[in-house]
Each structure stands twice: as structure tokens, then as C-alpha cells.
């Protein structure tokens, strides 16, 4: 069957035999966007986090059929070197990544958190950022999340943000 959606601002249609196929594998292996990671396949680690209509979801357990007609954003669409998302900018300033494998999932989870709670407290962060990082970069991540909130606040609310 054919499933159509927008991903990182581009319209895409994919032909897929099994509509229950997790979105993760469509993104990684059919659309060749490798920034979204496979960690556990059971929505337990968050390495596969991406945005569907602005919500952070764990794509390893999200059937591709539910993406029909939706707007998807992956780490590749969050920002780039010329125009980094505030979360990516904060991650660079705080030199967060070690091995780096889980980091896209954390950045996507953080970007969605800041959309809901622009200036999260430590308790907000503890409650909402529940991905797994084995290098245990949590100390710098927390600093980067607060920094990203600052960077977001510096953007005039009336001007268009360039985060798509």
C-alpha cells in the first residue's frame, strides 16, 4: 500500500507491503535518513525519537500507517550547520555528545519539550527527558537543555523561527 506524508518539509510517498512496519525502518532504510537510531525496538530507550505533527514519538513502535498525511521531522530536518536549531546550538556549546548514538533522540525529545514548556525546571527535565544514554552524558545534557531554553527566548516571538 502507499503511504504519504511530509518529512523535513518534503512530500514523500512510500510503497510498503505491511502497514504495521515501524516508522523507524521506513525512515532509516527506505528514506535513508540514518540520524534516527534503532536502540531497542520496544520504545524503551528513545534513540528512535522523531516528531509527528510536532509531538515526540518513539518511531520503533509507531506503525507507518499512522503517519499518513502527517508532518514528520527527524534530526536531519531539525537544523543544519548553517542554521542549527537552538537545541543543536546548545548541544554544540556544551559539547554534550560522547559516542553520540543516542543524542539525536535526546535532541528531538528536548525540542518537543521546549515547544510545550519553553523554560523547563530541573523537575520538568527529569519528568520528560527519559531516554537512555549509556555514556551517561546527562550532566551536560541538563545544562544544554537550559541553554537551549535561553537561546529560544532570545528569538523574538513575533519573527518566524527557522526550525522546520
Amino acid at each position: 500500500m502507499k503511504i504519504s506524508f511530509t518529512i523535513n518539509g518534503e512530500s514523500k510517498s512510500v510503497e510498503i507491503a505491511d502497514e504495521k512496519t515501524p516508522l523507524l525502518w521506513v525512515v532509516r532504510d527506505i528514506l535513508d535518513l540514518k540520524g534516527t537510531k534503532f536502540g531497542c525496538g520496544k520504545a524503551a530507550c528513545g534513540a528512535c525519537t522523531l516528531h509527528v505533527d510536532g509531538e515526540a514519538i518513539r518511531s520503533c513502535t509507531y506503525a507507518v500507517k499512522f503517519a499518513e498525511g502527517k508532518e514528520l521531522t527527524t534530526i536531519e530536518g531539525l537544523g543544519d550547520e548553517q542554521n542549527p536549531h537552538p537545541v543543536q546550538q546548545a548541544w554544540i556549546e556544551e559539547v554534550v555528545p560522547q559516542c553520540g548514538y543516542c543524542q539525536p533522540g535526546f535532541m528531538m525529545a528536548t525540542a518537543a519539550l521546549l515547544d510545550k514548556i519553553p523554560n523547563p525546571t530541573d523537575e520538568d527535565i527529569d519528568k520528560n527527558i527519559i531516554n537512555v544514554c549509556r555514556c551517561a552524558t546527562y550532566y551536560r545534557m541538563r545544562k544544554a537543555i537550559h541553554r537551549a531554553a535561553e537561546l529560544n527566548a532570545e528569538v523574538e516571538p513575533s519573527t518566524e523561527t527557522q526550525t522546520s
Partner: protein
Amino acid sequence: MSKKRISRRRFLVRGGLGTMGILAVGTYLFRNPIRRGIAGVINKGETPYMGNTSSPIIWFEVTSENNIVLHSPKVEMGQGTFTSLAQIAADELEVSMGQMKVVHANSDSGNLDGFATGGSTSVSSLWVPLRELAATMREMIKNKAADKMEVSSEQLSIANGVVSGGGKTMSYAEVVQDVSEWDVPDTPVLKDIKDYKFVGKPIPRVDLKDKVFGAPIFGMDATLPNMLYGAVVRSSTIGAKYVDADISKAEGMPGVIKVIQEPDFVGVVAKSFIEAENAKMAIKVNWKVERNWQTSDIEAMIAVGKGVPFVIQKEGDAEDLLSDGANIISYEYKSPIGAHAQLEPNGALAHVEWDKATIIMSTQVVKITRGEIAKRLELDEEKVNIVPTFLGGGFGRRLHTPNAIQAAVMSKAVGKPVKCYFTRKEEFQNDTFRPPTHHVLKAKLTENGMIEAMEHNVSSGDVAFGSPMVPAIAAPILGADVGAWRGGMIQYGAIPHFSTISWRVTLPFATSWWRSLGLLANTFAIESFMDELAIAAKKNPVEFRLSQIQEDDSGFRLKEVIKAVVEKSGYKDEVVNGRAMGFAASTDANTPCAQVVEVSIVDKEIKVHKVTCAMDPGIAVNPDQVRAQCEGAIIMGMSAAMFEKMDVEDGQLTPTIYGPYQMALMKNAPKEIDVVLLQHDDKPGAVGEPPLGPIGAAIANAVFRLSGQRLRNMPLKLS
């Protein structure tokens, strides 16, 4: 380590790689008997680089854009080695950090490391060889520039990869153009460390942007044209042997290309990951299982007094003094089975053609993997190219790579590239676990409250002995498992009588290297016991330790980190506002580390608020990344000490997913981590593992002050 110079004969240069300029090809000779090599690497912080001795070996490339590509024989798994190596090379090569690119050396490059990436040895072992190679290359280019520019080399100066003098300038890229004959000078005198511009500075990681913008840099991200997906049926039961399989149902499933039956495994190749996984589940395998193991069986095996003892440390006669029973203080400590739980599962992308094989994968053992693939496919090793990628976590998990063989066998069977990865459940069940341990500590105090005699007995499953890096033949030479006793020796050398005995136990499942090896459990036991002794002696736990450290270089460095952490943390042996401080210290691979934690207890939950860490790794090539390693190791160590535990139920290792395998998350991470770096050595030492040592005992010692409960088993749980 002797300062062996680069052999002039072996420093060759090969000209003309397309338009790319040159490949500088050199080798660094260093061979060690296995005993000294491995024991030195593991325990003493003497870290020889065990490079290949055949040539050619590719180290540097000069690109037409005037950048330098460093082919690293050490892999990047998060520890920051690429950045440190780039800093070291840039300083001797006289180029900017922006001109340095670091890539993983393919095994085809000849730049093969005979050891592995592990043991906190990467930067320390390459510190001398890499500077000598870079300095030699700089002089070669300078001399060639003198010829081309017709200016004497004494008149030339170099900045940012551009040679200037006599009113002329030439970039490295221009100098190396069309050169096929090179004169190789004697190894130049290295620069004074104080003249380095990059070494010692907090340079941002060279892989930072790739990792922030989601570049496809990991083994799991690799693709090749016409690639298929493989899945191997793996037993969930300890000790299960493959007998045979019914593949009839799987063969007709959607997307299936071929079901492959080998003497030791059965696998399926399909068009997609999901189709391969679905078909795999339709294969019925006969497993032969001889015993239904339980946690209680394993606990019964791991016990001091069982297995093979080996004395690894002995001063005076502690055994005799501690044998009469009077006034002896003795306690037992335990640590559980630990999983690596690295985020990127193990696997490989293999492409086997008729006379050669290419394997793209995350691995810590490039050379060993090449040998294993060559053997299985019956190819010469030179026909197997291992292409290492960035690792989605290593921690010792990627020292064993049998799944690369399976990917290669399946690729050969279908004649196309095959990518084959573990599922998370398979990853947990087929891990090479951190072995459980049991420790018995005994001591006798003098009337003045000093330790007169102390003995540490440790029983552990295999660590180094489970590794392909230590062949079975080495076990009788080495005696005790160097990995199991890492961190197990008593570091208080002023005690008149002390000894450590390691008891070796081989468990029915694989156990091996887990970041810091035995350090985590051994330090937990010894430093908890030291705290108990200090309390028995009615002494301040810090003063008690300081007074029993010997007067020598390592004793001086240990005292300095202890004093530094006490000063920085404001350590006090008392409970203030519901918070207590806990102290512990360790020496690992010649790097001393001391930590103070601030802990409270809320609803029987241990909460770590702040950790202060003082460490002396010698020269910190990149102080920011040394701090990052301390921060990460502290939280990973907390995770292991407070939460992590694998069990054995009805023959199966469990749990098999994050969550049930409880780990420290954001909410558990301390809000404050304060790292103090000291430098009382004139070279870089171990960094990635030493800061894992003290954390477990420091937490347990704080918990005792708050609750009166002495927690002697990891993970730490209040009753």
C-alpha cells in the same frame, strides 16, 4: 617504556594517490612479550603501542585542500580519542585544528593495532609514536619545500600547513604534489610541551558536528548497493548448543531470499530488516541444553575459597597475622552480573566477493576481527578489509565480534552485501557480561588505630581470560586474570602487612571486559572496608587513609588527589541538613582518583546530589574531554552501583530490555559534578576508566552515615 625511535628504514613514503597528494607511510616498532605487554597495559599504566610491524602503514594523508587526514588505529567510541590525537598531530605538524581530519584506519591501510581500543590506553600509548611520526613528516615536507623553493631549510618557517621563507610560500599540498621520492630524516627532537598550541587546551570534539546533526557515522548506518538484511536465530538459554532447524515455514515468507544453515547457526537473508526478523521467528531450532541454570547456582560458584587462587600482591605476612582469629575485623562484599547495555546493538555489514571480503562495523578489535573472518571464509588476511566506523558505545562490548562472521557467511551465501544486527533482547542475552564478584576483606588494627595487617580475597568470573585478546595459552603464563584484579590491589602501601588473592571462576556464560574491568567492584569492596576500619579506629576516614599511604611517587599522587577533593568539596564527616558526605579513592592504571559524594535519603531512595572528583591523569591532552569522561564515568558507575543487575532464571539471563534492566537516567544524575584535574606526571595517562572506581564506595559510605545501614552488596538497596 623505552623511547624507541621510528626506524628510518621503515618510514616510507608512497607518492601519488590520484590528485590527493601523498600518503605518508610509517611504522612504529614495538614488540613486547605477552605477559609484560598485557599486564603492563592493564595495571601499571605503562602502555606500549603494539602496532603492526609490516609495511606499508598509512598514518597521514595530505589532501589537495591542504588538510591532513590522520588514519587512527584506535577507534572512537565516545572517549574523545580522535580529538586528542588530532591535537597531538596538529601541534607537531604545524597545522591548525581546522585542517585536521581524523578517520578510522581500515585494516587495508596496514595501520593495525595489535591490542585493541580499550583499557584507557589509546592516547597514552600513542603519545610518543604519534608525535614522532608527525614531527618526522613535518621535517620531510619542510626539506622538500626547501628543494622546490630553492631556499635553505634553515630559512623556512611553517604555520598552518604553509611553508614560508626567502620571500616565497608553499602549502603542504603544493609541496607534496608530484613527489615520489622522499628523504626521511632522523626522528626530529620533539617540541617542548609548553610550546604546544593545542595539547592541553579544551578543543571542541572533532566529531561534534557529525554527532549533533545526525550524520550516518555508525556501523548500524552503513549501506552498500543491493544490500540485504540478515537475521540469525540465537538461543535464549545459557549453554545451548545448536543441533538442527526446521526452516520449511521461513523459506516461503515475504521478502525471504535464502535461509542459510551452517554447522553452528541458522540464519535468514531477506529484503528488509523486519522481513528477516519475521522469517527468523518462523524457524524452529533444536537446541541441546545440558543444565537449567539459576541465579543461586551462579552465586554458589562465585565464592572466595572456590576456584583457583593466585596471590597477586604480598607485603609482609598478612595471612599469618590474620589467621588467629582474635581482634580481626572481617566483612564480605558482593557485586552482581552487569550488562554493557550500549545503545548501538552489535552487528556488521559484510560484502563477500569471490576472493575478498569487506566488513563495515563498530568494533574495538579490528585486527582480531580480520583474523576471525579470514579463518572462517578461508581467505588470506590481506583479502579481508575491516572498515571500522564510529561506535555507538563500546565499554568492552565490542571486543567480541562473532556476529561479523555470521554476516560474512550469509553474504557469501547470497552473493550480495548483508547487514545483520542483534535485537535488543539478543544483545542482553548474548552479552559478554561484567562478572559477578565476591570479596572477603580482613584486617587487624594496632592499639593506635592503624592497620597492622590487611587481606583482600576476590572471587570473580573471567574478565581478560574471556577475551580473544588474551589467548588461552596466556592464562598459565599470567596466572591470575589481570582484568578481574584490576583495582583489586591494596593501595595503602604504608600498611606493614597486606596481600591480595584472586580466585578464578569460569562461569557458564560469557564474561569479559566492562568499562574499568574489576575496578568498580574491587574499589567498592576495599574502600567500603577502609571506611568500616576508620569507624572502628574512631578516626576521620580521610585522615585514616592518608596516614597509611606510602612515601613514594604513586603515594604522593594519591595523597594529592585526596587533599584536592577534600578541599574542593569541603568534606566533613558529619550529617548536615539531612545530607551526608561519602569519600573513597582508587588508583587505576597509574591514575589516582578521589571522590566525595553528597547524598540524602528520601523514602528509602538514595539520592546523589553532588559529586566532587579529583583525578591526576598526568597531562590532560584535552582537559574538557577528560572532564567529560569523569562526568560520564561517575554517572555510569552510579548506575552500576545503585541500579543494575542481571539475574539467571530457568537458564535465561534476564531482564532483556531497558527499564526492567534499571539504569541511572536523567532524574538520577547529580545536578552538580565538580572535577579537579591535577598533573603530577609528564605524560598522558589513563582517563576513560579510572573515575569509575571510587563512586560506589563513596555512596555506600555516605549512606551509612545517614541511615546506619552498611550496604555491602551492589546494587545498593536500603532495607
